[in-house]
């Protein structure tokens, strides 16, 4: 079916079609509308979900963990400070291998107070053992949520998945998008299979025991393995979903990379603007390509290296900063993946607190890359794009 949906409406609709057993939430801009809409579905009896209005995001995620361990399919949604307040329990969800699906409407962190988009929230949680997928538009946000169920619940993975989308830019933008039929979604995600559920009273289990120096390290190593196995699962689920919808889903989405000499790496809604900029600069004779990073965790290091080796210069665009580090989080990963390759990798921090990123700014980045390619000289490895 074709709809005109805002990002929030698309999230609520995807959740309605998934019909999870439990949703525990706390409202926060710009995610509130999605949960209001979903609460309507609950009130109208369109879903069988037990909706828990928690007293904070810390509690919301804690409820999700309990419900997940009890043996239910569980979802939630948050943003910004909400995700930050969940930080402690994010690790508990992942370590207990709860396949929780959480949509994050990416928003800047305080202070000063800012409700608009950047990726500081998600990047702050990047080491929590959650799979992280980023959407470019409302359509992808919807598609990612449905795929996330299959990825999280796969027996080789059993990790929570965070589906990210840019706050306001996508959450409050109405776009044309297609949804699947309810039955198609149900068939695709199939019945939830609980593994060692707490409510199976005939087979009692203990979750979260004291785990000191004698076993904690082994359990962390298992999470590393789950992330590695998730790589394949994400690709296969993407292919299967792609066949059903005619849209394609991979770890990385290259654009004009076949003969590219310089490249831009970007994630989230800026990918669309960057694609237009690449097209415009190609007309000016610059052989530039774009790599959209759809999955940030697990980080597709080998595939990215294959795609970017041989480039003369690569610009990595970060919508958050890692204060005191050498560049933003995406830059660190990309540069590290390209270690040993003869490629200049430079960083552009942009769009903090929802500062607009314009086509001409990305064109300037491409011009800079072209100069680096010609001269072999980098003026600055980290540039703050659009700051006064």
């Amino acid at each position, binding site marked *: 079916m074709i709809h005109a949906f805002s990002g929030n409406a698309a999230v609520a609709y995807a959740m309605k079609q998934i019909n999870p057993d439990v949703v525990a939430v706390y409202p926060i801009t710009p995610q509130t509308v999605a949960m209001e809409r979903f609460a309507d579905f609950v009130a109208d009896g369109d879903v069988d979900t037990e909706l828990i209005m928690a007293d904070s995001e810390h509690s919301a995620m804690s409820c999700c963990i309990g419900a997940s361990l009890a043996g239910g399919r569980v979802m939630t949604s948050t943003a910004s400070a909400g995700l930050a307040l969940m930080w402690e329990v994010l690790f508990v969800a992942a*370590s207990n291998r709860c396949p929780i699906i959480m949509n994050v409407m990416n928003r800047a962190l305080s202070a000063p107070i800012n409700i608009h988009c950047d990726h500081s929230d998600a990047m702050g949680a990047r080491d929590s053992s959650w799979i992280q997928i980023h959407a470019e538009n409302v359509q992808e946000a919807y598609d990612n949520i449905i795929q996330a169920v299959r990825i999280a619940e796969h027996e080789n993975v059993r990790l929570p998945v965070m589906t990210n989308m840019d706050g306001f830019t996508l959450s409050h933008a109405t776009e044309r998008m297609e949804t699947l039929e309810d039955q198609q979604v149900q068939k695709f995600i199939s019945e939830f299979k609980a593994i*060692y559920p707490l409510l199976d009273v005939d*087979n009692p289990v203990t979750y*979260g*025991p004291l785990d000191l120096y004698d*076993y904690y390290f*082994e359990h962390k190593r*298992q999470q590393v393995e789950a992330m590695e196995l998730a790589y394949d699962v994400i690709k296969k689920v993407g292919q299967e979903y792609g066949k059903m919808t005619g849209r394609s889903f991979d770890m990385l989405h290259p654009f004009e990379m076949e003969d590219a000499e310089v490249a831009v790496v970007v994630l989230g809604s800026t990918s669309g603007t960057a694609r237009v900029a690449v097209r415009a600069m190609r007309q000016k004779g610059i052989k530039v390509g774009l790599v959209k990073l759809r999955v940030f965790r697990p980080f597709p290091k080998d595939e990215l290296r294959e795609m970017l080796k041989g480039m003369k210069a690569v610009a990595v665009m970060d919508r958050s900063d890692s204060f005191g580090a050498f560049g933003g989080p995406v830059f660190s990963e990309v540069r590290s993946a390209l270690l040993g390759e003869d490629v200049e990798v430079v960083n552009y921090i942009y769009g903090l607190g929802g500062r607009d990123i314009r086509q001409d700014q990305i064109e300037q980045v491409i011009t800079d890359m072209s100069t680096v390619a010609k001269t072999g000289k980098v003026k600055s490895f980290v540039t703050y794009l659009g700051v006064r």
Partner: protein
Amino acid sequence: MKEKGWKECLWGGLIVDAGNSVLYKTGDWRSQRPIRDEQKCTDCLQCWIMCPDAAIKVKDGKIVGIDYDYCKGCGICCKVCPFDAIEMKEEGEK
């Protein structure tokens, strides 16, 4: 107990067998060992009542020994004994 590698153990420290704490020999924690003097002991059972780890072994109302697999060496038995029948000795001391 041989410690398992990451490929062999269940995720997240999940415990699926009930009553397994008996496998954990907490006696390993002990730095001081209670030694009971059978001559002085009157089987008053004060130590048996007070021991937080149920490590005083009793049969037919008589103390038959100390369970060193689970005695953590806290010394409560020595403290409460009205007859000074229990002495705490450093582990490793003869």
